[in-house]
């Protein structure tokens, strides 16, 4: 439940950044101007697509898997939590790379990106805790 809620919040953060990037939103609520600097840098795109799009799709995948994992038929299965852990770990790795770029290359901080970084780390922690908890209870493989 925690992961689903965090994923939904993360989805909206990424959607907000994506809508600004593609020009639907005229402004970003970002006190220092760092969001615009980061979002307009060449690093805001990955393989030709906005980084925020990957974030949005990632959070959507986490939301779907977490909701599936809550269903009675799968709640005792290990695969949803394992899937969440793998997805979140990929998200944290990608976020770490982007945060490094903000600190060392772009020299600007995008607050919304940092909010997303906090969310994905919290999701990974929750997934790992869930995985460990499942490890101590009889489960269906």
């Amino acid at each position, binding site marked *: *439940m925690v992961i*689903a*809620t965090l994923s*939904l*919040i993360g*989805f*909206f953060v990424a*959607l*907000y950044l994506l*809508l600004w990037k593609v*020009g*639907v*939103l*005229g*402004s*970003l*609520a*970002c*006190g*220092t*101007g760092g*969001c*615009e*600097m*980061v*979002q*307009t*840098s*060449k690093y805001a795109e990955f393989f030709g697509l906005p980084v925020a799009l990957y974030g949005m799709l990632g959070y959507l995948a986490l939301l779907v898997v977490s909701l599936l994992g*809550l269903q*009675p038929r799968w*709640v005792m299965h290990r695969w949803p939590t394992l899937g969440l852990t793998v997805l979140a770990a990929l998200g944290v790795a990608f976020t770490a790379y982007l945060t490094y770029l903000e600190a060392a290359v*772009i*020299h*600007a901080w995008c607050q919304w990106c940092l909010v997303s970084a906090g969310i994905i780390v919290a999701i990974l922690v929750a997934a790992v805790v869930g995985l460990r908890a499942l490890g101590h209870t009889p489960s269906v493989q």
Partner: protein
Amino acid sequence: MAGPVNLKPFYVGLGVVAVAGIAAIWWAKEGGSEARAVDPVPVSAGSFAGYVLGSDSAPVEIVEYADFECGGCAYFAILTGPDVKNRLVSTGRVRWRFRDFPLPQHRNAPAAHLAAACAGEQGRFWEMHDHIFFNQGAWVSDNRPARRFRDYARALGLDLDQYEACMDQQRYAARIQASKDEGVALGVNSTPSFIIGDILIPAALSYDSLVKLVERAERAK
């Protein structure tokens, strides 16, 4: 063993989060989140009031507070600036005023603003403005950005001796700082920020958003 968990309250909570998220994005799209009313700040008669494009008789003035090293400012200058000049300023609808607002975290911004001011001394501010923004990626990480700005000055055909003397003396540093101080007094704390009529918008605007605010200012006349 515990019975099945009732997920209904959770789904309701998730629905509330979804509705809040959609509402927040809708609110942001309508532009209400950032704009706020601004009170006029007295400017002393002798102080420099910025670089102006357009007619004195234009009914609406837009004041831009910008930092040459700010990515959002460059983004605006490159993508939206041409539309603003061709469709709003050249048509006499808007007068554009550029104010310096170098941010402290941008190490090359002071030199960039000085270079633009020194080009302005020779009547070429706007050309240097465009060179600096359009080539931001080339100098933003340069440890000696003054070399780049000197190249732009040469490309513009400036009197290089005069330009270099201006840069060496930091002739306009106080004026740039004064511009920033006036912005701070108005509530500017990020770049780009725009004042359109009596509204301060602390964010890069799309052309369409800008036009809506110009229309609003026109109606308020």
